[in-house]
Structures are given as C-alpha cells and as structure tokens.
C-alpha cells in the first residue's frame, strides 16, 4: 500500500496490523516518533493524522488508509523552523529531547486549530497526554503560548509569560511555611 508521509507518497509492505510507529521508524526510517511506552501512555510517538494528534504506537497501519501523516520532519528543518520549533528552541523547552517530537506536534495541531493566541489552560489540555520526565513543563507551556502569539526569533523574550507565584501554591501541614 501507499502511505502519505509529510506530503510524499511512500510504498510500504509491512503487514496491516503493524503499528504506524513501527512502519515509520523501521520501514521508512522516519525517526522523530519515539518508542516511549508503546501502550499509548506517554505521547512520545505522537504524529498528526489529517492534522489531528494520534498515538502511532496504537494505530495499526490498516487504519491509516490514505490519511495525511505529518511528523516533525514535515514541520520544519534546521534553518527553516516552524514557529513552534523556533519557540521551543528559543525558550529552552527541550531538555533531553525525547518527548519533544510529540510535544511539538500536539502543540502545532492546537495552534493550527485555534488560529490565534492560545491560553495556558488550552495548552495544558492539549499536552495533557504527553509526559516530560525531565519535568520541563513550565518552559514547554511558555513556548507553545509564545508560538501562538508569533513571539519567536533569535532574541528570547526575557519576561516569563506565567506570573511568578508570590505565595507557595501548596501548603503542607507541619512544614515551616
């Protein structure tokens, strides 16, 4: 069968129940989707199917049909970054980088859907199925908000978009605070 990956029609011969993740990585060498948990829990294998974020580890090849698959390779390349890629780079939103592909695609889909500035709750909702074990969520959320506002470029904006809490958000009984 043929698979439409990043605008290019590719011939594939994997059996129909092979996961899209396996087909992309092992047959087509499209390496941005990662093996994280292979059970739909971490988001590292996320790709866009007709513009919607999907877990490629849970999606059998047969279910993809002639849908358009978009991976990070189709978003932008070095020297020609998509806004969401620029914002992640400017704002240090990638730490180890392993969750980054999935985060970028989910964020890109949100921004495309919204067509304008997204707020913090919308970002949290869109990224809720994505685990960053380096726990760099603050910078990721800021990057997505900045990308949706077109605030990208070589000069990072110093002012954080999230207000700094003046009081501890969580009080623990017995703690000195």
């Amino acid at each position, binding site marked *: 069968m043929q698979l439409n990956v990043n605008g290019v029609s590719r011939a594939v011969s994997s059996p129909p129940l092979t996961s899209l993740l396996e087909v992309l990585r092992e047959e087509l060498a499209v390496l941005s989707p*990662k093996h994280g948990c292979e059970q739909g829990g*971490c988001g590292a294998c996320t790709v866009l199917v007709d513009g919607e974020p999907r877990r490629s580890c849970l999606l059998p090849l047969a279910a993809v049909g002639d849908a358009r698959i978009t991976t990070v390779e189709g978003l*932008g390349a070095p020297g020609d*970054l998509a806004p969401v890629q620029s914002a992640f780079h400017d704002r240090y939103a*990638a730490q180890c*980088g*392993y969750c980054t592909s999935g985060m970028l695609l989910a964020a890109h889909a949100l921004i495309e859907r919204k067509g304008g500035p997204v707020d913090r709750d919308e970002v949290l909702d869109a990224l809720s199925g994505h*685990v960053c074990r*380096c726990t760099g969520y603050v910078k990721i959320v800021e990057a997505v908000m900045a990308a949706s506002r077109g605030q990208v470029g070589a000069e990072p904006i110093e002012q954080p978009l999230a207000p700094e809490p003046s009081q501890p958000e969580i009080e623990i009984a017995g703690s000195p*605070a």
Partner: protein
Amino acid sequence: MKAVGARLPRYDGVAHVTARSVYVDDVRVPGTLVAKALRSPHHHAAIKRIDTARAKRLSGVRGVVTHEDVPNNVYGHLEALGIPADEPLLAENDVRYRGQPIAAVAAEDSDTALEALDAIEIEYEERPALFDMRNALDPDAPRMHHWGGVYPHFGPHNHRRVRKGDVEWAFDQADVIVEGVYRPQAIEHCPLETQVALVVPEAGGRLTIYSCTQAMYFSLGVVAAHLEVPLNRLKFVGGTVGGGFGGKVDTASETIAALLALKSRRPVKWRWTREEEFLASSTRAPWHIEIADAVTSDGWVLGRRTVTLHDSGAYARFSPYGVTKHAFHHTGAYTIPNLRFDGFVVFTNRVPTTAMRGFGVTSVSMAVELHMTRIAEVLGISPWELRLKNANRIGDTTANRVAMQDPSTVPVTLAAAERVGEKLGPEYAAMTADRRSGDLLPEHLVAQQAPEGAHVLGNGGGS
C-alpha cells in the same frame, strides 16, 4: 567571558526541535539483530538446570548466551574502588530478584527472539523471599545473599559508622529527647527512553557500542572487565540520552548486547520494553531512618543518634557509596557536635537500587528537615529560629569533620523567611554565616569548631 550571564542557545537545541538528535534507537546499521532477555519469574530461587539447546536450533536465532558465555561473569560496579564484586551479569546458581537476567538471545526479528526465550528450559527451586529491610537481620530471615543480611565491607565494620564528640554526654544533658522514624520509598527513574544499546562488531575486531549511558568511561570499564578485553577493543558512542536521572549510571544493557554481538558476529540492538524498565531496571533505594536527638528546652541540638537502613535490593552496586554520602550529610544544614551514626546497606529480594538525583543525600535531608520541624513542635518554639540557631556557620565542622568555608544555611533560611513573609526576632533576622561567637557559641559547640583557616578538624579517634 562573553558567556557568563548571557543566554546562550543550547548546542543541541536545533537538533532536538527538528528531531535530528540521534538517540541509540535511531542508529541504523544494516543486518542488526534484535536481542531479548530471559528474566527470572521468581523473586528468589535456585537455578537447577538451564537448557538452551532447543532455542539455539530455531530458525532465525543467531545467538544464545548464558553465564557460561561470559568470560568474567561476576564483576562489581565499584570494584575499582575496592568494593568487592557480588553480581553476575547472567544468573548462574541463584536468582535474587524478579526480572534478573538469566539468558539472552539475538534473532532476526523480535517475534523469533521471543519464541527462542520460550524455548529455553529452566528448572527453578523457589526459596522464601525477603522484602522488608527491617527484617534482614532477624535470625530467621531468609538468607538471600552470600554475604549475609548486610553488605559487610566498611573497613573493619559491617556498616558505615560516624562517631564524633561525646554522644552519651549529650543525652545525659538533654532536657528533651525527640525521636522520629522516616521512610522515603523507592522511586523508578522512568526515563522516556528505556535502556538501550546497539553493538556493532567491526572488521578489525573492535566493537562499536552505541550507548545511552550517563557514564561513558565507567561503562567502558565495566564492559571491558566482563568481556576480559583491553579498553582499546571497545569504541563507545554516546552522549545523547533520552533521560537518565541516575538510572543510566549502572551499565544495564551494553554488556549483554556486546556478548550477543560477539556470539552472532552481527550487530545487535537491545531495547528494553517499558515493562522491563519498570520490572527490572534499578530504582532509587527505599530507606528506613531512625533519628533520636538530645535537645535543650531553649532549642540547642546537643547530640544525635541515627540508625539508617539502606535497601540495596539484591546486589551491592553503588549502595555502599550511597550510604557513605548519607552518613556525611546526616546532620544536614545544621551543626550537631555529638554524633553516633550507624548506616547499614541491607540486602532484599528487590531490584538492585542505585543512584538517583542526590544519591543518598535527599533521603536523609528529608528526614532531617522533618525532624527539625518535629523538634520545634515538641519545644513549642519557631521552626525558623530553631533552624537558624543550629545553622552551619563558618568554622563549624560537618559529621565527617570537614570545616565549613561558605555554609549557606543562614542566608537561604533568611531568604525563605522573607519570601513567605515570616517575621523573625531581631537577633535572628540579623544573623550571618560568620564564625560563631557570643550567645551563638555555647560551651557545647566550642570543641567541634575548626581553628581559623583550618579545613578539617583533627580526628578525635572516632569513626
């Protein structure tokens, strides 16, 4: 000095956001075989028989290895530091935790590798297992390690000791004795990238090892020691790690993949499943920490007795080092002059535990801070002022007698108080990290002070 204070782009930032960063699983070498491991289904058992004959005959299987194939099967992670070896690469006579590798196969594809694992016959004789470290020294506890219930090689002792000052005097003088038990639990590092290695036999006889390790030269040494090859036979490629957090300090996947590559003469990739990562990869240790402090009613901590159990799991790995760091930090940010610390590295039938962010220190820091607050509650005084009074000062000495040069307890505590709007008494608000004097140098803190300019207090014949 253009870089100091500037915001510099990450050198790997563009590669990360364009998915050009090459993690081990992204390396493509034609003809690479898939590795899978047979792991113990039991927490504790004797191995009576291993038969791999049927697995070796399967079509598509290119290599099967057991302990018989490892040139030097038992090697310790810290053998180079004088900590003797206790852990086999592949289990031989015993399995001591569920998930311990016994055999491994390399095959043309994943399904064939899994079929080969099913074809390996192993006869076990199950033994009682030990999970609660508090029972490890009971006379009727299951004997699960040839060294006994605890790691026994701390110089002449079977545990890490600190002896400083006169702890008996402190407890005689105390107005109140405040006791507490603290039990931080095991934590799985859970990196998104599971343990993974790719080993490629090169034409000249070298092995190229693509590794997710956090500790490249350390892993180089471990693989070379198990395989009994000189270091220059191994070329390690790494540096791009999909999360580690301490869990990729242990050499987890490289050695067995290398063994299979040598056996099959083919490139071999071994990527652990998420299930394997949770079942068999190391965790942060669980601890059992008991603290008793001799305290005066006006808030001086005169002395501390501590007993710590560090759950090492089935093998020693880095735990003797972890409990030593724990010992050095067991007074935390505070100066307590009279100490008796006994820290045991305890064996249980859990996965071996290892480094994780602040190895050995975060556990005791949590206990110390909770304990300071408990003391303040018992005495009915401000937890801030209790901390500031006993805070480390320049010239005070740590549990292991190192003199403080630049202790941060006072400025950090004052900054925290300001941040949350805590009003402190004027004598506390004016405190600095300067050397103790006047009311802050009571008789009991004189002897622990290092002479001005000294880096270490003379060893009083203690630890």
